[in-house]
């Protein structure tokens, strides 16, 4: 026992002490500033990144259209009256020359335009999608043949760039994609109120296209959805079963250690390796179709399994032993203890891990490269056996096309992908905060 009286009481007011205290407070404040600075920097970068994508992506959701009174000239549908069957009539409608229909309208509108190359340039103000719009019109109702229809046709990608301001009129004519006369035609149409830029229906309902103004994201969204369903159906049951067995039933010996180490290692394997595995097994051994969401989902399931197993094991481990003891004490069997008590209590954690694994799978392209899902697919996939692509692949492909218009489509597709990712993560956060129990 030391005598407290023998010790000098600390003089908090001494200069030395005051200086030391001040220094300690300063260190506290500095550290706080470092932290705020780090968060601030991250926020600024995030805002810049998102901001630039949003600014670039917004025109990608839009489509510029031109209003024309198109005369559906019966001369272009010769023989349709004599067509014996609806199929024959359809064939005539499919192969009719729709470019000529709107070209004639444009020539009436701009009678001063002459010369082959100028007329070609004039008709190229309308996207090649204009033919499809007219064809669908006639396919839907054959009685429009011989009448004049007031239609909005999609404008070419360059006209869209001009309308949304990404093509500058200041650029010298020789370096501009649209020449002066073409711009004057667009201006004239615009002055008559026949040019509008609206939310693109095509973007949200169509598959890929080589024309930026017609390209749609829906094919990739459906592909991603089908792929993730397959991934979920395979990886969730297998992952949870593995985790439950390893956590609750498996004897702790060298074998279970080895398995555990391997699972942890697999979680860190680069995803392209799973693609090679998918190629070797699903395509070369089982001869499943290339580019199918089934194969993509199975490959991604292999990749997601370790994530789900690790998350599920952690969630099971967090259930206190008293729950197990109490259930066992009341006479429940091991299986009853696990499935009636432990697993339901661990479910929020398991689901959170699963959703994060799914979000990872949603953003993956590398393994899909090997199994042929990095492909140009126009038709919307109808099932897990149809060729399809997924959202990140669509972004990758669009980023690589030479047409300027695909820059904004790429940014728009990134926004769609980010929306899905944020949604999935929000669900994970919700599940955690709503259902997770603290012991």
């Amino acid at each position, binding site marked *: 026992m030391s005598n407290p009286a023998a010790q000098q009481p600390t003089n908090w007011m001494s200069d030395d002490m005051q200086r030391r205290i001040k220094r300690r407070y300063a260190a506290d404040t500095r550290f706080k500033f470092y932290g705020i600075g780090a968060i601030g920097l991250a926020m600024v970068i995030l805002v810049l990144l998102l901001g630039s994508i949003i600014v670039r992506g917004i025109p990608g959701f839009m489509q510029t259209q031109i209003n024309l009174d198109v005369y559906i000239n019966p001369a272009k549908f010769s023989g349709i009256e004599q067509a014996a069957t609806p199929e024959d009539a359809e064939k005539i409608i499919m192969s009719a020359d729709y470019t000529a229909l709107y070209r004639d309208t444009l020539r009436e509108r701009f009678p001063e335009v002459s010369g082959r190359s100028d007329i070609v340039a004039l008709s190229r103000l309308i996207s090649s999608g204009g033919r499809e719009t007219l064809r669908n019109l006639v396919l839907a109702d054959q009685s429009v043949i011989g009448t004049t229809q007031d239609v909005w046709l999609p404008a070419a990608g360059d006209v869209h760039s001009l309308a949304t301001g990404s093509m500058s009129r200041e650029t010298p004519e020789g370096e501009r994609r649209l020449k002066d006369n073409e711009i004057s035609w667009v201006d004239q149409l615009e002055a008559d109120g026949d040019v509008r830029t609206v939310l693109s229906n095509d973007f949200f309902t169509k598959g890929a296209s080589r024309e930026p103004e017609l390209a749609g994201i829906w094919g990739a969204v459906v592909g991603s959805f089908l792929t993730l369903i397959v991934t979920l159906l395979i990886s969730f049951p297998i992952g949870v079963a593995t985790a439950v067995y390893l956590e609750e039933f498996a004897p702790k010996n060298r074998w279970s250690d080895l398995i555990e180490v391997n699972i942890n290692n697999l979680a860190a394997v680069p995803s392209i390796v799973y693609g090679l595995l998918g190629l070797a097994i699903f395509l070369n051994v089982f001869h499943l179709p290339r580019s199918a969401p089934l194969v993509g989902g199975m490959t991604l399931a292999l990749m997601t399994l370790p994530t789900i197993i690790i998350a599920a094991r952690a969630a099971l481990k967090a259930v206190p032993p008293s729950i197990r003891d109490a259930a066992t004490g009341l006479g429940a069997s091991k299986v009853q203890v696990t499935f009636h008590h432990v697993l339901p209590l661990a479910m929020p954690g398991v689901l959170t891990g699963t959703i994060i694994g799914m979000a990872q799978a949603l953003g993956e392209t590398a393994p899909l490269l090997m199994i042929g899902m990095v*492909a140009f*697919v126009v038709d919307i996939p109808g099932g897990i*056996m149809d*060729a399809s692509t997924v959202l990140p692949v669509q972004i990758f492909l669009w980023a690589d096309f*030479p047409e300027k218009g695909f820059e904004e489509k790429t940014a728009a597709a990134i926004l769609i992908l980010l929306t899905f990712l944020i949604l999935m993560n929000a669900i994970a956060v919700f599940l955690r905060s709503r259902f997770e129990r603290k012991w």
Partner: protein
Amino acid sequence: MLKKPLVALATVAVAGSLAAGSAHARDQIRIVGSSTVFPFSTAVAEEFGKTSSYKTPIVESTGSGGGLKLFCAGVGTDHPDITNASRRIKSSEIEKCAENGIDATEVKIGFDGIVMANAKSAPQLELTLQQIFLALGKQILGPDGELIDNPHQKWSDIDPSLPDTKIEVLGPPPTSGTRDAFNELAIEGGCKTFPALKAIKKEDKSRYKGICRAIREDGAYVEAGENDNLIVQKLQANPNAFGVFGYSFLAENSDTVQGSKVNGMAPTFDAISSGDYPISRSLYFYVKNQHVGAIPGIQDYVGEFTSDKAIGDFGYLSDKGLIPLPEDERASLREGVSGLKPITKADLE
């Protein structure tokens, strides 16, 4: 309890689809191959899908070599029907195809120019093939006639008339067909202008290729990946850098980048199609004859691709940057294609 039906369901689903997979007949054309031909092939596929009763073909971008490897792997619905190539098929590939019982019909679709471009903010360069070789070749002739590692650091080291800036060229990696063609047409083209180097070809062909088709690896040539848009963006950021890419990207970005003149010719549509621009190559696709008739629509797809509407002088592919074949060559092409005459090693000579 909850899990068991789920496991069972998944097992059934997987087993069911496995069974369905093996019996799955294909009614959709599958195309693989070159990333250079990809933008053209996809445009034709889309048009074909829209204007015919067939499904839109699936086009994968695997590179010319990768495509031919898949193409020659066998006959059957697991294997692609058509492969695109930005170079001609090699005799080794014809052999591989023959081993697996495949006859391939060659279809030449047009030309592509490879450009060396820089930002518009910098002056346009006039180069010769020889200067390109001296700038980018791995080894060049030293002052005493011996091969030395390329010593040139600045463009002005090669020729005083060239700018006094560091040699910095962004281009595709070796897996790319564009790189193969650039090595062959530009680097080798410049290499051949030295009689001493050309003489090696007769003595030792593989040594000649090692010298005349090799690009330096000391940082002056930067492998910038397969994405040509990325190269264009980097050129805008760095006016001293040059980029190597296909003509279609130059045509789309003519407001920001300019192509260097090579041997006095600027890379324009007309100069490439007339063959005056020296770095241009032919583009092809190969059709698997055994699949014609078995997979619906192949012949119609080939017909669409070879029509004047697509590859003609004002065809929709020329909008996308493809340089069309001369008219007479197109006519003979259509004739050859309709007969599905398989390519043999003799044709490569």
